[in-house]
């Protein structure tokens, strides 16, 4: 959180700080993305044409939107493993309920959004009220929702929905200069990203990060944590719903659409420098993580890497990217922690240890906790030395 607020102005002075940002842990994803895009363009110059690039953005849109939704959950300190199943369920709902009847498009779209919000609400309430760890709650939802969808359809959806509905994911504004076509999904992505940036900067969005950074502190500062947490799950389920709408257009109806999206989204978010366990991250970087991941897959396609090697390459890249970000973040946090810890630590006598693990009873609500050590964030820095 502190990183977000302090780095924002430097983004404003883009030109001066661009280089520094790119090698910073949060900027690393942009550097990775640029390197990948340049590599693709070198292998296949036609990729750099505007028409091809916009097609690339269209293709990434669903993943990026899912990553944006997952960002809010992760930054709030939780996981959402049910996103893939939500995507699948929505795709199948669209296929089976709309059918070839154009008139049903809008009502069913409304139904899908309501259903998505409902799933998110259930996830959120299970996590907040029943105190089930989100990993388990959403894992259960993932199994149950996919199973129910398959049971309902006998395993295979009836068929694709009406072309007018699929137009959202497949079509766009045609006959434009330079880019030829502006796909609707690109517009949807831009809108979602803009809303997400706006939302993340609002007090509510900041509260999510504060909650992920230090749940105790946030609670003492008067946050209705159950509602904040629940809302992040609703956001992620709604983003999965939107991704489903785009995917049913882009790809069509199939029970395997959306499979693995939860892991793709988490990987993208983490590639974007967002810390698992919450409290740190930038939504734009999370979206960039999705772009980097898809660019990597595209590069592997263009480079003609045998398909069986692709997973291995992906594994190496995500480990290295996160290792890079983690080691640098750690270096920085160390510096910051040393500067600030003399502040809160002496004021807190009941603290079990010199490092402020205890809730700080007098935090400034406007300035979310500066305490570097949260229980979950420790995962990321596990091991010391």
């Amino acid at each position, binding site marked *: 959180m502190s990183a977000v607020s302090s780095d924002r102005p430097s983004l404003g002075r883009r030109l001066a700080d661009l280089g520094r940002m790119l*090698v910073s842990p949060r900027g*690393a994803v942009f550097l*990775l993305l640029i*390197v*990948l895009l340049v*590599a693709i363009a070198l*292998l*296949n110059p*036609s*990729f750099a044409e505007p028409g*091809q690039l916009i*097609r690339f953005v269209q*293709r990434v849109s*669903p993943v990026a939107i899912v990553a944006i939704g997952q960002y809010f959950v992760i930054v709030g300190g939780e996981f959402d493993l049910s996103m893939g199943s939500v995507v699948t369920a929505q795709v199948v709902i669209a296929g089976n309920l709309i059918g070839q009847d154009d008139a049903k498009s809008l009502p069913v779209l409304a139904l899908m959004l309501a259903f998505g919000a409902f799933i998110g609400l259930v996830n959120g309430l299970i996590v907040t009220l029943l105190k089930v760890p989100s990993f388990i709650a959403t894992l259960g939802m993932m199994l149950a929702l996919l199973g129910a969808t398959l049971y309902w*359809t*006998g*395993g*295979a*959806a*009836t*068929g*694709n929905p009406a072309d007018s509905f699929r137009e959202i994911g*497949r079509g766009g504004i045609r006959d434009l200069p330079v880019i030829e076509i502006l796909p609707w999904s690109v517009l949807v992505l831009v809108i979602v990203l803009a809303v997400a940036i706006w939302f993340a900067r609002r007090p509510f969005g900041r509260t999510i990060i504060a909650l992920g950074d230090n749940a105790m502190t946030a609670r003492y500062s008067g946050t209705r944590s159950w509602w904040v947490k629940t809302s992040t799950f609703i956001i992620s389920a709604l983003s999965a719903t939107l991704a489903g709408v785009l*995917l049913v257009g*882009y*790809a*069509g*109806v*199939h029970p*395997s*659409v959306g*499979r*693995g999206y939860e892991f793709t989204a988490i990987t993208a978010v983490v590639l974007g420098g967002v810390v698992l366990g919450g409290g740190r991250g930038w939504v734009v970087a999370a979206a960039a993580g999705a772009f980097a991941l898809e660019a990597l*897959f*595209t*590069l*592997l*396609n*263009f*480079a*003609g*890497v*045998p*398909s*069986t*090697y692709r997973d*291995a*390459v992906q594994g*190496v*890249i995500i480990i*290295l*990217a996160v*290792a*890079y970000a983690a*080691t*640098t973040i*750690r*270096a920085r946090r*160390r*510096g910051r922690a040393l500067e600030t810890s003399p502040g809160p630590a002496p004021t807190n006598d009941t603290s079990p240890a010199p490092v402020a693990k205890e809730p700080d009873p007098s935090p400034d609500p406007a300035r979310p906790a500066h305490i570097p050590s949260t229980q979950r964030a420790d995962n990321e820095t596990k091991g010391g030395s």
Partner: protein
Amino acid sequence: MRRRFTVASAMVGALALITLAGCTTDPNVTAPTEDAATEEAVEWFDQELYDKQDAERDVVPEGPEDQPWLQYINAEFVDTSQYASTGAKKACFANASISNPWRQTGWITMNQQLQVLQEAGAISEMETRDAQDSDDTQIADIDYFIEEGNCDVFIISPNSTAAMTPAVERACETGKPVIVFDRGVETDCPTTFIHPIGGFAWGIDTAEFLIEELEEGDKVVALRILPGVDVLEQRWAAAEKLFDEAGIDAVDYFTGADPAEIKKIISDELAKGDVQGVWMDAGDGAVAAIEAFEDAGVDYPVMTGEDEMSFLRKWKETGLTGLAPVYSNFQWRTPLLAAQMIFAGQQVPKEWVLPQEPIPAEEVDEYLALNENMPDGHYAKFGGEDLPGYPQVWEDRQMP
């Protein structure tokens, strides 16, 4: 000191990252431990089986003309008089899974066939355990049937060939008839093994069609579902061999049958250069492949899919040059009918090879008309037109 270490390690990490990002063309980067096994695909190719299936494609099957699920190719019959007995029998069915549309369609058909045999008094009930694609679970399922099932006949659709062999042998040791279908096992103890001609035949049919329609040097994109599944690997092994020999430039991808993945792969291939042909090891997701050509605004490819309705419909709609290879779905009827024959003491083929004929362009209209209201995941050659519940049960995909 510590900070210097982390900064240094970070720089090393960044360097490695950049080097790696730039060097992904070199596959050696990712698999440093392995360099010898690249030729294993060739080693795995089974020339004998290939030749057998190649020959079987041209054999006119024997048996009732309008019931392909009772036809057989080059059959050697076995005597089953020791099993002959009266009364309704209990069948125990160890199913690998119903996790794809092909298996779901077959499972629906099998249940309708069961109804017929129950009404005829041949089968009293069928107890089914579904292994959900797990070898380990299916072994436990078979063991459970042996000990607790009170079964008169075992019907097994193995999840994988070699792994299921010991369990099937245990079932054989009970002395009761054992019927294996779809994928085989590495033992000849089952009373009968029912299957269509096989994966190599699929590969030969499809590859020969594409080679016929294309020219040397043309590009074919092969879309495959998963690695490591023998029936699917056989399809590709045969096709790859033929493409190689004919000078067709074929490149293969694994898609998980995910249409989004298929569309991305085709889009990237089209961005790289022209694609003249698409080969699939299963038709699931074929529509997305065709749409990728539409979206890119280029000519349709020559394409082989499967007899899944989604492909047949899109094929008809676009008028592309295509072939629908068939992995005969009607084989799901045969095992229960074989059980009935075995208890009647009739001879059954030891290896019951069912016909497996692709659907060519001339026959598409006929199959589309026959299956007009079926869902996209339905298979045209499901062979259940004379069963109770037709067509409603298949249209609604009702399964127990």
